[in-house]
């Protein structure tokens, strides 16, 4: 599978502060990819590097096989909605569409007009007077009406109320349903991830902790509860992501491609939220210390 975003040893430094360092990842095409990680993990920096708003200090990044923003044609293939979904407050909704049509050779006016109508927006309204949800929808409309091959969204729903968030994601998924567009978006809202994303990337302190198709990840991870035991006795192929012991009991979150055969364990499925949090806390060192805390990536 070709990568829509491929980074190798990618780093960005501001003064003496590294916002992103030694980041290596490959995001596959044709998917809706959720990028999650704690604040300061480098998500926004990574996405801004991907659209060419920032230049890397070290390493390389390619987007759709080319350096970001290498040419006008390359710019046309990538859509981007920055954090807080910026619009021009003094321009009207209709002005935004005209601007989009002028600036983008591949502009799909029919799609833009259809979405604006479906959203119930008045083209004469000044964009600065729109609600947060409407603003986000307008920004999304501009990004998708240029018919990009890759749409990058930086925490598009962070500031929206639950209803506006759902409507935004509905709009996004309806466009994805038409086919031909890969999506990468960063988010803190894990509940959205499972509905909307095929593919998950957990980024912590610039490192990819886990990446993969969500259905496969859910199938491979399980919570084991059983009598307290030494983890060195686990069979090979079971990677412990998170572990906690009480006096008599051990609780493990493991990743294992095969079934768990030991009858001493009670085996339960793991929800996506627990899975993501386990990897995030593992990397921050807040999990139980122990020799079994391995970095799992592929």
């Amino acid at each position: 599978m070709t990568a829509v975003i491929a980074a190798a040893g990618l780093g960005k430094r501001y003064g003496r502060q590294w916002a992103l360092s030694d980041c290596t990842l490959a995001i596959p095409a044709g998917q809706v990819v959720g990028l999650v990680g704690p604040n300061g993990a480098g998500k926004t920096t990574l996405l801004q590097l991907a659209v060419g708003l920032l230049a890397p200090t070290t390493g390389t990044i390619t987007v759709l096989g080319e350096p970001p923003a290498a040419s006008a044609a390359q710019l046309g293939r990538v859509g981007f909605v920055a954090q807080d979904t910026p619009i021009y407050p003094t321009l009207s909704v209709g002005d935004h569409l005209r601007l989009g049509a002028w600036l983008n050779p591949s502009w799909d006016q029919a799609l833009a007009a259809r979405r604006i109508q479906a959203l119930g927006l008045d083209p004469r309204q000044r964009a600065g007077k729109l609600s947060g949800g409407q603003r986000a929808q307008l920004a999304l409309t501009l990004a998708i009406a240029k018919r990009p091959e890759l749409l990058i969204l930086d925490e598009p729903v962070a500031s929206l109320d639950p209803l506006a968030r759902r409507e935004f994601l509905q709009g996004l998924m309806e466009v994805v349903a038409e086919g031909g567009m890969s999506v990468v978006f960063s988010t803190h809202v894990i509940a959205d991830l499972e509905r909307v994303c095929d593919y998950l990337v957990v980024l912590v302190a610039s490192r990819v902790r886990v990446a993969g198709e969500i259905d496969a990840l859910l199938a491979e991870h399980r919570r084991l509860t059983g009598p307290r035991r030494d983890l060195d006795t686990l069979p090979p192929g079971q990677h412990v992501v998170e572990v906690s012991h009480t006096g008599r009991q051990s609780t493990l979150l493991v990743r294992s491609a095969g079934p768990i055969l030991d009858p001493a364990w009670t085996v339960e499925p793991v929800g996506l939220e627990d899975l993501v949090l386990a990897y995030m806390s593992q990397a921050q060192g807040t999990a139980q210390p122990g020799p079994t805390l391995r970095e799992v990536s592929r």
Partner: protein
Amino acid sequence: MIEFHLDSRSGVAPYLQIVHQVRHALRLGLLCEGDQLPTIKAVVSRLAINPNTVLKAYKELEYSGLVASRPGIGTFVVQTLSGAPLVALGPLRNELERWLGRARRAGLDEESIEALFRDCFRSHAGEDVA
């Protein structure tokens, strides 16, 4: 036509939730042969869900021979899932009731019986647990 819902806290992959809901509806007779499943686009707009998820669920149902997709028209139920014939249920029920009586006489309370049943059920199902 049925409507799907998603429980994001269940730990069950969304595509499997859709598969389960269709199977459940077939078992209860809420869906019959010839009924149409909601179009992918309709499910996507209703649930704000990834279209590939719905597609994967429908593929899985198609693979198990329960539904068939007619390109450009939709996905239709071609087989129902009635459970075991009623005749078989009676004796099984009697056996289970006798067993429950024995368990109670042995001093097991409801919770212990349930735990024992689930444990046996899981080890018998054998897929995730052995």
